[in-house]
């Protein structure tokens, strides 16, 4: 909302500069976006002058050489190109050195051989309007040589305010003035919508026009009729106000409708009454598919949700949004029907969004205006129609207002306000603030009963709303700063959140970089991962196909990140992400409107995933280690050990994994499959332009958290009796898994075998063809005694026997 400062000050002038006023308004909730300067620079070089003499330029037909008295001795010689200049006119003059609105400085200029000392001004040259056809001719009684700024608004400032959706009243200059009055207590001029014009004649409006409305879409429709209207340009003051506020001046009648809207927030529409076909207006819903050409020259189609203003032959405007080309006011208009209506805000908003058509009018109507504002706006418009267009106002108005609203009354409890704000606002302050805002507070047995003015009706309906009004104007800067007097609450992270931090830190400290990728992915990415057949959740209104599916796993985001970094010179990397993934958990749609009772619409799980193309970077004397199954497995081991979970790998494939170098991660406690670890299928990696082994894992952290719960440990004695360490080498068939060897060793060693660690795998000459040797370190320990050599020997025999059962033997 652009608020010209001079206009604002004409209603409320705290006597302070624009920036100060804007700061006060900002702190009251009318936030300044920008402060603009409009019009000329320094006003000193602009004066009034009288044309003493105007002669045609000897060498140019279209130029006049004028002598202009600017009250400074000899008249100035000024060359002027305007066709309407003539001797005797009082005019606006820019003297050499003047700074024009575009920032240029006026110098002395030689025009076809004649030196021109200054410029006779047209309105566009001082930013008042757009007219450049002729110079401005001032009233003859304006003194010569006076500062021009005293007679014309040639320099102004404009406050561009951000208006919140709850304050339609601030979409009008007078509404802003009222807020300024409330915060500064500077006097407020009378509401310009109070006084009405004098009707003339013995007829009445309803003899000229009939109105029919649908009360579901139109809360009020007022119409006034004006005759003998003289269409012409608006006066300069009006043009300046419109121009500064960002509206193009058009003609007096159209300008009046815009001016009243900018002043009161109530939009109006002027019809050429002679063009209203059938002499009547009907407000109705559109028929589905009905069409009309709007004022902007576009043909638009409507649905039955939308409200139209029609005459006997069809639509003439989209209610509350934009008029049509039929019955538009033109130069030939002499009879005007002035409409001021009240529409249903949400309906206007839906229509405006659906048509992609926003206007100054719809921006106001969608915030829900009060029906009282319509008739108020008619009063100001009527006075201007009579004053500026010399129109005759036909007595009475047609006023369709089927369900009049009673003024709203809201109760305010001072103790409630103090309890909410944490400070006591003195009672007289409360009254003063409400009164200045246009509310009517009355003391009512310790409570304050407050009547809400119509222009605040949509926003202030409850006690809390009144408290907000008082707090905003009283000054939030006057609030004390306190901390809650806490009773029983202690802040903490949950065990789950601490677990997330632990595993994220663990990966970070092993050199991995955390990524955050979009939660959406593309159907194409799921195809490339060969899981397009698995259920996934689609957005109804995605921004693009690339971001149209909620990702069912984290892997695609990490692949995208790896691709991006590889393309920017970083092919060797190790990344992780810790975030939600999404799958359907049944039909999404929901019928009821009450609380879902804590249910969630979809299956959302917190996953942790790693992608690495490198296990360890190389140094100046060490080779880099590429990623492979084991480098990723080592990370899973670390993560699950940090979570205190026992697990085992099971060979089960995902379609995107290497068939021989990947495994499922299975929790030992309940056999649950909690993820995968391994190398990506080379063809899948190639889809992301990644060459060489790409390995990783993805596990369900919600499952990990559940499994990790309650894992409590107690002390186990390790100091009283020494352990016996022995290394063994076990030869088994190549295809025997290491896990089977370890299980056999553990089975043989029994409880006295405190630990087994695999530290080497050997294939080669020293073992047979198709065999391998696993080197194991055994730790024997008893809690209550030192083991004897005999005991250890017998344990070894038992282990040897166990190994024999899986075809293994001890070597050496």
């Amino acid at each position, binding site marked *: 909302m652009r608020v010209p400062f001079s206009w604002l000050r004409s209603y409320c002038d705290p006597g302070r500069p624009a920036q100060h006023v804007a700061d006060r308004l900002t702190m009251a909730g009318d936030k300044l976006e920008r402060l603009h300067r409009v019009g000329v620079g320094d006003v000193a070089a602009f004066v009034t002058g009288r044309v003493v003499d105007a002669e045609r330029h000897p060498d140019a037909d279209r130029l006049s050489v004028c002598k202009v008295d600017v009250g400074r001795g000899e008249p100035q010689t000024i060359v002027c190109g305007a066709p309407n200049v003539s001797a005797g006119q009082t005019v606006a003059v820019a003297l050499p050195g003047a700074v024009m609105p575009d920032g240029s400085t006026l110098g002395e200029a030689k025009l076809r051989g004649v030196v021109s000392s200054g410029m006779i001004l047209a309105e566009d040259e001082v930013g008042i309007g757009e007219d450049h056809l002729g110079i401005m001719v001032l009233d003859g009684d304006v003194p010569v040589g006076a500062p021009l700024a005293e007679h014309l608004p040639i320099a102004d400032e404009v406050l561009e305010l951000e208006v919140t959706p709850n304050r339609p009243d601030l979409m009008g200059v007078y509404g802003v003035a009222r807020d300024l009055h409330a915060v500064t207590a500077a006097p407020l001029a009378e509401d310009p919508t109070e006084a009405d014009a004098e009707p003339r004649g013995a007829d009445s409006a309803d003899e000229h026009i009939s109105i029919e409305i649908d009360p579901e879409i139109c809360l009020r429709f007022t119409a006034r009729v004006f005759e003998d209207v003289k269409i012409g340009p608006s006066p300069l003051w009006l043009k300046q106000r419109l121009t500064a506020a960002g509206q193009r001046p058009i003609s007096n009648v159209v300008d009046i409708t815009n001016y009243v809207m900018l002043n009161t927030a109530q939009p109006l529409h002027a019809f050429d009454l002679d063009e209203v076909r059938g002499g009547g207006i009907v407000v109705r819903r559109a028929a589905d598919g009905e069409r009309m050409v709007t004022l902007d020259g576009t043909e638009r189609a409507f649905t039955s949700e939308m409200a139209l203003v029609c005459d006997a032959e069809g639509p003439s405007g989209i209610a509350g949004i934009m008029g049509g080309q039929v019955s538009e006011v033109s130069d030939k208009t002499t009879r005007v029907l002035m409409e001021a209506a009240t529409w249903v805000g949400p309906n206007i908003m839906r229509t405006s969004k659906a048509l992609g058509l926003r206007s100054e009018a719809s921006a106001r109507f969608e915030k829900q205006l009060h029906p009282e504002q319509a008739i108020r706006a008619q009063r100001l418009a009527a006075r201007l129609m009579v004053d500026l267009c010399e129109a005759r106002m036909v007595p009475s108005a047609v006023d369709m207002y089927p369900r009049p609203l009673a003024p709203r009354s809201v109760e305010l409890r001072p103790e409630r306000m103090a309890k909410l704000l944490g400070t006591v606002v003195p009672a007289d302050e409360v009254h003063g603030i409400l009164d200045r805002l246009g509310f009517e507070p009355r003391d009512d047995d310790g409570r304050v009963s407050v009547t809400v003015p119509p222009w605040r009706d949509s926003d202030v309906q409850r006690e809390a709303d009144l408290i907000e009004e008082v707090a905003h104007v009283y000054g939030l800067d006057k609030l*004390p700063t306190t901390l809650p007097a806490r009773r*029983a609450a202690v*802040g903490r992270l949950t065990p789950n959140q601490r677990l997330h931090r632990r595993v994220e830190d663990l990966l970070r400290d092993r050199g991995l970089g955390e990524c955050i990728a979009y939660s959406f992915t593309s159907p194409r990415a799921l195809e490339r991962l060969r899981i397009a057949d698995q259920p996934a959740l689609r957005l109804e209104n995605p921004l693009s196909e690339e971001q149209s599916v909620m990702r069912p796993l984290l892997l695609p985001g990490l692949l995208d990140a790896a691709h991006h970094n590889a393309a920017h010179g970083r092919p060797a990397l190790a990344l992780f992400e810790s975030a939600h993934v999404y799958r359907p958990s049944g039909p999404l749609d929901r019928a009821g409107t009450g609380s879902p009772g804590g249910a969630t619409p979809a299956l959302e799980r917190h996953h942790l995933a790693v992608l690495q193309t490198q296990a360890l970077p190389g140094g100046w004397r060490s080779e880099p280690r590429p990623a492979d199954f084991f480098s990723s497995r080592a990370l899973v081991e670390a993560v699950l050990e940090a979570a205190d979970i026992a697990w085992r790998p099971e060979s089960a494939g995902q379609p995107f994994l290497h068939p021989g170098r990947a495994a499922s991660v299975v929790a030992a406690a309940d056999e649950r499959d909690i993820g995968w670890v391994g190398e990506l299928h080379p063809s899948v990696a190639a889809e992301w332009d990644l060459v060489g082994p790409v390995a990783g894992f993805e596990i369900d952290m919600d499952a990990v958290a559940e499994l990790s719960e309650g894992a409590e440990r107690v002390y186990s004695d390790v100091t009283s009796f020494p352990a016996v360490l022995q290394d063994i080498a076990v030869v088994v068939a190549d295809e025997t898994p290491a896990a089977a060897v370890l299980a056999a060793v553990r089975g043989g060693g029994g409880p006295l075998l405190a630990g087994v660690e695999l530290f080497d795998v050997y294939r080669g000459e020293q073992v047979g063809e198709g065999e391998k040797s696993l080197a194991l370190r055994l730790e024997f320990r008893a809690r209550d005694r030192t083991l004897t050599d005999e005991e250890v020997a017998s344990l070894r025999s038992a282990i040897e026997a166990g190994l024999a059962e899986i075809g293994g033997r001890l070597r050496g």
Partner: protein
Amino acid sequence: MADLAQLRTEAEAAVGAAGSAAELEELRVRYLGRKSELTQALRSIGELRPDERGPVGKQANEVRRALEGLLERRTAELDASELDQRLTEDHVDVTLPGDPPVPVGHLHLVSQIRRRMEDIFVGLGFSVVEGPEIEYEYYNFTALNHPPEHPARLPQDTFYLAEQVLLRTHTSPMQVRAMELKEPPIYIVVPGRVYRPDTPDATHVPMFHQLEGLAIDEDLTLADLQGTLLAFARQMFGEHTDVRLRPGYFPFTEPSVEVDVSCFRCGGTGYEGSERCPTCKGEGWIEILGSGMVDPNVLDYVVGSGYDKERVQGFAWGMGIERIAMLVYQVPDLRMLFDNDLRLLEQFGAGP
């Protein structure tokens, strides 16, 4: 026996001047060996007169012990200096990097900021809770006092998956979920991802992160909100930070306030030297969050869990984590945060 004294003087000088273990060995043989003068002297003691044997023997033994001690010390000294010399020759280029490398990774900048915020609010007595990102319209809008016709519900402003099912547009739905689960008092913060169908540009991305706060108790005031956010701002932005409340508008708070912090770049002056501060654009204040007293209509939706609007009251706020990234870390373009470009992410260190 003047020759023994002279021998000692001579030997001590020789040992002192010796520069290597070999020389010392040579001197040991010369002065203490079987054929040395001293050994000869001790052997020939028997040839002396009985009254001379004692004093001469004593003196010879003294000289022997002194020379032995001296030789031992010199040997140790020479060993040490030879070791030093050997070690000095065995030097490495200490300016070479460590090897093999032990890389330290990094947390994403958004995670770093999120953790800092969480930790500050945990310190202020708030618990951290998280919630679903695919959400019911009820929790995202209805129970947060957005009327059915509120424009934020339109598909232009909200991603939908089905009738009444959407991607949460803010972390606020967790306010309602948390209150349904727990009766007052409640003090929580809610970090997490939120979504809006904004066409991406430098300051808009369709997914970003917020941190929501909610405190409901019997007597929380707007002044308490100010104090809580001041305590947060001072830990987050520096101990000299001030906060300022400005009137605002949100459907689910009343009164609503916007919270500004004094600019941490220019110290609230609006200028860096004679240049207008680029962070606060010369205003001295930066808007960081929206907040207010929880609207009574919101409490009505959870009255069944003990939130009687006449008995309990409180405040709520929501702030953007990426906005802090832009303000504090001067990241110029939000889109860069989700490209996961290591050249950007590694700039911010390992993280807390």
